[in-house]
């Protein structure tokens, strides 16, 4: 496999969209899936499927083994210390809700503070808002600077003795800013404050090593890293998982169920109530293999080169304004155009087969701060090329033609 012709590994690119080759620039929303992942799902259903962890028949053993092998794969990929630190969820959203709910229930009291930032996706704000309502906690927002970044100083200024957890994104899905997580974790460690990283945009693009980052919680959406939809991961240090109460109740997560009491399974099972996504978990191993074969650093460098080339092209167009100018940017280019609303841009680009997203990208607080209701976003994956950036640029010129600007 080679990044240069990696598109051929993704069946979706075999079709035309509106008669044009597909230029997919919406990977921050969800990435496309390589053939290996797609095939693994059908192949698993055809030959190995059964429910996991419940029956003793041969198929159940097979399926359970494949499921747990995926946990090991993820554990190794993230360089977690223990396999029990990997919890499967339905997505980063559920991963963060789990922490907000279970950590919040046990450790957050009235007046305690949750420190987050203005960059966050709604999924790293609303779960904390629930906690604010339920417990009377406070949410502090570290401000974003005019480059679209949140720096270590902004965090430092807001930490105090009431800060009980820091919840922060790894990469902004709007400005693309790569947040200095390691420095923030080091700072938080000095004060004994746990850190939750929303790694939804980080995991598909950066090398992530839990021992190196040192964070307490890391949330991932598998569908944004070439894996199946409906699957996410919560990495959490074992010391937390052992202490936190379960998030949902049901089958599988119990130890003993009596009329007068219930005891719970050990982690990770304690946090995986009910029938889990089985084929998705199994097929996610293939997504990791895909990333490992190419090398995440190579993917990152490739995307960086394409992104920089794309930014260069867009900057030549004087109707285009690029949002944010972070020193370190990860695979996201948000922009606006004078006189054309992002929604119209997205429709016009689509006619040329160029798929982007328009809106506030689930970051209303950030858009309010920037004073713009919506932006257009081109976001990259391993399958993008310079040619895609040229097509983006041409399609943007077409917007100007249609709007007579």
């Amino acid at each position, binding site marked *: 496999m080679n990044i240069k012709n990696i598109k051929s590994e993704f069946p979706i690119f075999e079709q035309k969209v509106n008669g044009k080759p597909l230029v997919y620039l919406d990977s921050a929303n969800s990435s496309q899936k390589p053939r290996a992942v797609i095939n693994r799902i059908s192949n698993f259903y055809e030959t190995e499927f059964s429910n996991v962890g419940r029956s003793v028949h041969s198929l159940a053993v097979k399926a359970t083994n494949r499921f747990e092998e995926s946990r090991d794969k993820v554990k190794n990929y993230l360089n977690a210390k223990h396999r029990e630190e990997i919890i499967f969820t339905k997505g980063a959203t559920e991963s963060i809700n789990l922490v907000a709910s279970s950590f919040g229930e046990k450790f957050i009291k009235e007046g305690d503070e949750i420190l987050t930032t203005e960059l966050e996706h709604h999924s790293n704000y609303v779960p904390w808002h629930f906690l604010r309502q339920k417990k009377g906690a406070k949410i502090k927002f570290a401000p974003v600077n005019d480059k679209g970044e949140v720096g270590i100083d902004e965090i430092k200024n807001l930490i105090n003795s009431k800060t009980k957890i820091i919840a922060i994104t790894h990469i902004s899905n709007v400005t693309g800013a790569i947040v200095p997580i390691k420095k923030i974790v080091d700072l938080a460690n000095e004060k004994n404050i746990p850190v939750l990283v929303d790694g939804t945009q980080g995991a598909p693009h950066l090398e992530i090593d839990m021992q190196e980052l040192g964070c307490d919680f890391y949330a991932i959406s598998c569908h944004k890293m070439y894996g199946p939809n409906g699957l996410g991961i919560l990495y959490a240090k074992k010391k937390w998982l052992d202490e936190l109460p379960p998030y949902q109740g049901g089958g599988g997560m119990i130890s003993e169920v009596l009329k007068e009491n219930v005891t719970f399974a050990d982690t990770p099972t304690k946090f995986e109530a009910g029938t889990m996504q089985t084929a998705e978990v199994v097929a996610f191993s293939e997504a990791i293999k895909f990333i490992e074969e190419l090398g995440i650093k190579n993917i990152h460098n490739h995307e960086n080169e394409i992104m920089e080339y794309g930014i260069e092209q867009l900057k030549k167009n004087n109707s285009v304004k690029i949002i944010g100018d972070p020193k370190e940017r990860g695979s996201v280019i948000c922009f606006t155009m004078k*006189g054309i609303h992002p*929604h*119209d841009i997205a429709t016009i680009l689509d006619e040329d087969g160029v798929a982007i997203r328009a809106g*506030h990208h689930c970051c209303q607080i950030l858009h309010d701060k920037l004073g713009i*209701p*919506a932006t257009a976003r081109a976001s990259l994956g391993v399958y993008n090329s310079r040619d895609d950036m040229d097509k983006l640029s041409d399609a943007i010129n077409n917007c100007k033609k249609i*709007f007579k600007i």
Partner: protein
Amino acid sequence: MELKELYQEIILDHAKNPRNKGKCNGYNHDAKAHNPLCGDKVHIYAKLDVNKNLSDLSFEGEGCAISLASASILTDTLKGKDLQFSKKVTDDFLKMLKNKSKITLNSLSEDQITTISSLSGVQEFPMRIKCATMAWHTLLAAIEKKK
């Protein structure tokens, strides 16, 4: 489907120079709506007089060309019109986008029919239908909602 049919001259004109923008004097009905998917907002203001005429009609809002043009065309077409008639036009407009039917009301001028019908191109863009219908649904809500 051609983009040219979506972004017709009439629509671009209304989007760039929206008619009846702002709060109209003496309005006694209003309602607002927003589309959380894209952040489009619209606020309709109506003055309903004793004879059940929409003697004044205006809007405030921000959004894409389709939503601005739609709100502008709505106010332009229905300002001064009788309430029952306005409801009928709204109904026909919403049906036009839903069932691809034509607008044929004989009490609208040919020009007005052409203008409203310019929005029919939206039919071919299912993700954009809400942009075109939001103002009209909001008008119906405003009629029900006295200040």
